[in-house]
């Protein structure tokens, strides 16, 4: 019994009237029994609108902060007229005088009561003004006044200061320094981790025998040309190769890349247009950049078409030996002709497709018989390269050299970031070794392994 009573008491004690805050948090009221808030009050508003199931409605509206007693009383009378219009329905309304209504917590609110009609059709109404909380309020009710009075009894205002008031004087001197960031240099660590992972992958691939080891040093007499060591010199305005034969001969090969430079400018302009669009720059500016990009790309294509790619082989003394020049503009199946200073066609080159593997043919300059075939060795690299690029040299294409169906040599790249390779050959038949070198260098120029996965 005692336990049951104590539980009932605690429920009563803990179940007080529900509280309701205004949208801006400045005012909090308790909801009178039977009343509930209306959904139509806009969010963020400082007003309250409540109604009950009997059709009584109640509102509490915040007045301008500068409103004084006279303006509040005027507003109260205006509200009374509104209520009378709503409730009269052809009947007489009578309102009492404006008077003070004392509050239990102390103080009073000012207002008036009225009623419309008589007998069972009587409708009560009332208006109250409150200034006691620093927030001028105008409450009105179409119904008994008591619930509105209860609301004002229990209302709480959260008044906030209007300015920042430090307790002490401002500090002299500069701001206190900040400590170094706890994760400073993390980007460098991430990048190093990526590089380490890639190098680890390269070492693992080497250990598994997936990458080609550097071939053993040549045992052939020093008078033979092969193997020839080839190296691409990077960060040059032209494409430059250096080659050194086993017999001490040296060559270099150069090829212009004007078209690539112009096309690269066009691509950068396209990227700039994309950046402008992402920052929602002026449409005119974006359009201008796009037009400039299109013009530059077009110019690049024109330069490429009208300036076929050419590679000049130069001996160690700086004498140009001959030139391998692309025939026309055929990006899918390029062809080239090697011409010496007198204009003789020394040999021809053409690319033939063999699935995804690269394959080139070196042809006799006059009769166009196939002297040599240059065929990519491994297919898995061909499949991976479009996704990863040559991946720090690990996936560069290595070639076998075939003459009359028999392997007579190879071009093997070192698995390094820089483009270094070794060209080996034993018998070449009718093909001059220097012609082979030029052909290989031209293939490297026109069919390069890119470090990025963009399409070639």
């Amino acid at each position, binding site marked *: 019994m005692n336990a049951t009573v104590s539980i009932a008491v605690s429920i009563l004690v803990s179940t007080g009237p529900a509280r309701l*805050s205004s*949208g*801006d*948090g*400045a005012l909090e009221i308790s909801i009178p029994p039977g009343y509930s808030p209306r959904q139509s009050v806009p*969010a*963020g508003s*400082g007003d309250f609108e409540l109604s009950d199931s009997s059709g009584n409605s109640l509102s509490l509206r915040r007045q301008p902060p500068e409103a004084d007693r006279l303006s509040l009383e005027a507003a109260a009378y205006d509200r009374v007229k509104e209520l009378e219009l709503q409730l009269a329905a052809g009947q007489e309304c009578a309102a009492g005088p404006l008077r003070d209504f004392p509050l239990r917590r102390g103080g009073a609110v000012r207002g008036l009561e009225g009623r419309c009609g008589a007998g069972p059709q009587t409708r009560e109404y009332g208006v109250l003004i409150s200034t006691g909380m620093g927030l001028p309020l105008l409450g009105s009710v179409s119904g008994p006044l008591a619930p509105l009075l209860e609301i004002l009894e229990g209302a709480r205002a*959260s*008044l*906030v*200061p*209007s*300015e*920042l008031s*430090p*307790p*002490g*004087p*401002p*500090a002299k001197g500069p*701001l*206190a320094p*900040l*400590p170094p*960031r*706890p*994760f*400073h*240099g*993390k*980007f*460098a660590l*991430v*990048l190093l*981790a*990526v590089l380490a992972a890639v190098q680890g992958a390269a070492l693992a691939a080497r250990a598994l025998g997936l990458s080609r080891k550097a071939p053993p040093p040549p045992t052939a007499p020093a008078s033979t040309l092969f193997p020839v060591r080839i190296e691409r010199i*990077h*960060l040059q305005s032209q494409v430059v190769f250096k080659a050194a034969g086993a017999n001490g001969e040296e060559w270099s090969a150069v090829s212009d890349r004007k078209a690539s430079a112009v096309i690269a400018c066009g691509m950068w302009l396209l990227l700039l247009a994309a950046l402008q669009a992402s*920052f*929602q720059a002026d449409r005119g500016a974006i359009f201008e950049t796009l037009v400039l990009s299109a013009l530059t790309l077009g110019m690049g294509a024109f330069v490429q078409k009208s300036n076929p790619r050419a590679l000049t082989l130069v001996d160690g003394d700086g004498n140009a030996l001959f030139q391998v020049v692309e025939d026309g503009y055929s990006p899918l199946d390029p062809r080239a002709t090697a011409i010496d200073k007198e204009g003789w066609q020394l040999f021809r080159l053409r690319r033939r497709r063999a699935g995804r593997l690269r394959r080139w043919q070196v042809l006799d300059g006059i009769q166009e018989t196939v002297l040599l075939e240059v065929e990519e060795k491994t297919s898995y690299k061909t499949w991976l390269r*479009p*996704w*990863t*690029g040559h991946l720090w040299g690990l996936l560069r294409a290595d070639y076998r050299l075939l003459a009359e169906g028999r392997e007579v040599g190879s071009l093997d790249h070192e698995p390094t*970031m*820089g483009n270094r390779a070794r060209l080996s050959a034993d018998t070449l038949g009718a093909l001059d070794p220097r012609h082979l070198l030029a052909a290989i260098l031209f293939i490297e120029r026109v069919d390069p392994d890119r*470090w*990025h*996965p*963009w399409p070639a």
Partner: protein
Amino acid sequence: MARLIFLLALAVPLSGCGRIWLPEYIERRAGDLLARELARDMPPVEGHPWDAFLQDAGKKLAAVCERPSYGYRFRIVHSPQINAFAFPNGEIFVTDGLLKAVGRDAEALASVLGHEIGHVARRHTAEALQSKVGLRSVGFLLFGVDQSVARVSADLAAQLTELGYGREMELEADLCSIRYLAALGYPPETGLKFLKILAEKDRERGPDFLRYFQTHPPTQERVNYAEKYAKALPR
């Protein structure tokens, strides 16, 4: 090897390990766009009781920060979230949800303002944008545009690094709040007021394994870090 060194030399300044090179007008433009976008979902609140305090406190805190004449503007927006937003054009939004959370504690609100002003004064958005561009460029240069495994891994590495940067900036902004309030004459602990309110509400966060993917460090970590800094400041 030359390309590798060139790439690193390019990536380090792009990523923001050095100074911030992003021009101010881009910062402002980005801020205008972001603020406009957010204002669509969070309409401004006019005539809020906290408005006068917000303007006054914001002005006083901005006057002692590293970029006092940047042109800060403060606004209360409607949202039930307990949040505040600093845009790189100097606009700072405070939600009315946050104002309810601070109750009548003006100093807690001032600490929030100090934090947001810190983000603008220290150019955190510019730095984050720069590092994002730099990290994405490095990933792009290394692995291209295709959605390959390598590219996705590079993206994930970039995101983790960006999150790291984001958390560092939050911690730095917490310290800025302490510094600015101390410069005005408040005790250093004043800058921790709102953090402590947040820490109370933070108990319902996710488990720790998610922390690496959150843009803000856990609140208790922020409180500990800021308290250590505040204690070391001269009184």
